[in-house]
């Protein structure tokens, strides 16, 4: 597969772009592989890419029941950041952010990583203190963070209403290296790069059963036949429970809905990512010009991929409360993704009770920014049959041990994380 280069772009343009090849092959399943990754979203494709590029394991299949990148990878709000409190999380996300920073070059694909800055607004002393504690945790762990006063917020995002809302803005915690990336391109870029290293990406291949013998994984059954492998990694946000049930165990996950929205395209209006502290709302502007925004969970378990009006109303109301200039703009489209919610809001990248079966799961609504880091750590865990130190804490067993990674102290309530 030819690489994308300036020369190639130029010559193809001159001959009617007739020479471009598929960004990845439409592979058919072979009977066996060294590793099968279930799930052709960003996390699964990244796992395959890092298995091949870091660990030299290229006899890998990515099986996807539908299309590459059509799950949560293709239905999120594209935010990338590493502004976490707990060291276990901020180290992991910082590693992920560093991978993001070099992703275009690693993948030979422009994922449009845009470090526009992410601001979390705060509105009272308690929120400010929590922001200080989190920001200081970042700084002490070598991650960029800045405290903005009201003038600082005004300078970064002048259309935020600092004064007139129910809860006036007191300031914000800024991570300048945070930002957005083009979500579809992330899936396509990883697919393109994994494929180039020999990985088989098999779309329309749905796993219908897990082959477990003597407590160890031996492969998967699919609608396209049995595929065997001594190692299987799951990267199937929203469907993790379904697949682990096939392998014979339950996991601490509840699947919930999260809506997202995009406005009509506009000339540049909001230059950073900004989150409201007084309600569930965050917004950024895409390169195309649409305001991409969202809020909190719809509040009950669902695999339905469609949202409800009351949650949408809250998101829009919080939006206008934060930025009154939004009132006359228009929402264009809304959609919903299904989230693997965990009891502490943090993810799993780990081994499972079945030997040879691994998973990256439980990303709640923060999976997009984790994409490269999740794939990198998942690949490591699969290749070495042991976690990397970056994901050593992200186990299923942490609840047995009482070592929760609860960033916000919300407690063991899946829907509150």
């Amino acid at each position, binding site marked *: 597969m030819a690489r994308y280069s300036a020369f190639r772009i130029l010559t193809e343009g001159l001959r009617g772009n007739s020479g471009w090849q598929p960004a990845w092959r439409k592979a058919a399943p072979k009977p066996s592989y060294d590793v099968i990754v279930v799930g052709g979203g960003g996390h699964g494709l990244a796992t395959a890419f890092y298995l091949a590029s870091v660990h030299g394991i290229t006899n890998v299949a990515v099986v996807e029941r539908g299309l590459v990148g059509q799950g949560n990878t293709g239905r999120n709000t594209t935010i990338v950041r590493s502004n976490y409190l707990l060291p276990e999380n901020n180290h992991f996300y910082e590693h992920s952010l560093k991978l993001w920073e070099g992703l275009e070059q690693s993948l030979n694909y422009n994922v449009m990583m845009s470090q526009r800055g992410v601001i979390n607004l705060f509105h009272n002393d308690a929120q400010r203190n929590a922001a200080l504690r989190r920001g200081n945790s970042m700084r002490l762990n070598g991650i960029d963070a800045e405290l903005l006063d009201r003038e600082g917020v005004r300078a970064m995002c002048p259309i935020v209403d600092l004064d007139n809302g129910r809860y006036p803005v007191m300031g914000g915690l800024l991570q300048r290296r945070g930002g957005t990336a083009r979500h579809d391109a992330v899936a396509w870029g990883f697919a393109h790069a994994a494929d180039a290293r020999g990985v088989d990406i098999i779309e329309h291949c749905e796993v219908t059963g897990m082959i477990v013998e003597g407590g160890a994984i031996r492969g998967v059954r699919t609608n396209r036949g049995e595929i065997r492998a001594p190692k299987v990694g799951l990267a199937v946000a929203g*469907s993790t*429970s*379904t697949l682990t*049930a096939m392998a014979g165990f*339950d*996991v*601490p*996950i*509840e*699947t919930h809905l999260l809506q997202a929205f995009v406005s009509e395209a506009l000339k540049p209006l909001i230059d950073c990512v900004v989150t409201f502290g007084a309600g569930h709302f965050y917004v950024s502007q895409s390169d195309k010009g649409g305001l991409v925004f969202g809020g909190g969970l719809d*509040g*009950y*378990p*669902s*695999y*339905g991929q469609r949202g*409800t*009006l*009351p949650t949408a109303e809250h998101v829009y109301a919080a939006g206008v409360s934060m930025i009154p200039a939004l009132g006359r703009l228009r929402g264009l489209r809304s959609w919903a993704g299904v989230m693997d919610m965990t*009891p502490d809001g943090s993810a799993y990248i780990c081994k499972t009770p079945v030997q040879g079966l691994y998973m990256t799961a439980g990303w709640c609504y923060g999976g997009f920014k984790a994409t490269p880091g999740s794939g990198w750590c998942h690949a490591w865990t699969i290749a070495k049959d042991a976690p990397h130190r970056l994901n050593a804490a992200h186990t299923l067993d942490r*609840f*047995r041990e009482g070592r929760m990674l609860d960033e916000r102290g919300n407690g*063991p*309530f*899946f*829907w509150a994380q």
Partner: protein
Amino acid sequence: MLMIPCPHCGARDEVEFTYRGDATVVRPAADAGIEAFHDYLYLRRNPRGWQVEWWQHNGGCRAFLKVLRHTVTHEVRGVVTATEALEVPPA
């Protein structure tokens, strides 16, 4: 949007209710040990299909109700009070 027939108040819109978890898990006996409480608090069947759930009618009678609901279609098929049982239909 769900319409939940509250046994006390009648059919009401979902905005009056709050979901409060899988109602099939049962709090273990006091001496059951960490493993049993772990499973009760953390492990979830998380079905793609029918599930019996706790919902509180906090905008009405405040009762905790058991609601049989489908997690894909969102259809609500049965609602009973906390002490009654609901049967889960197959698939």
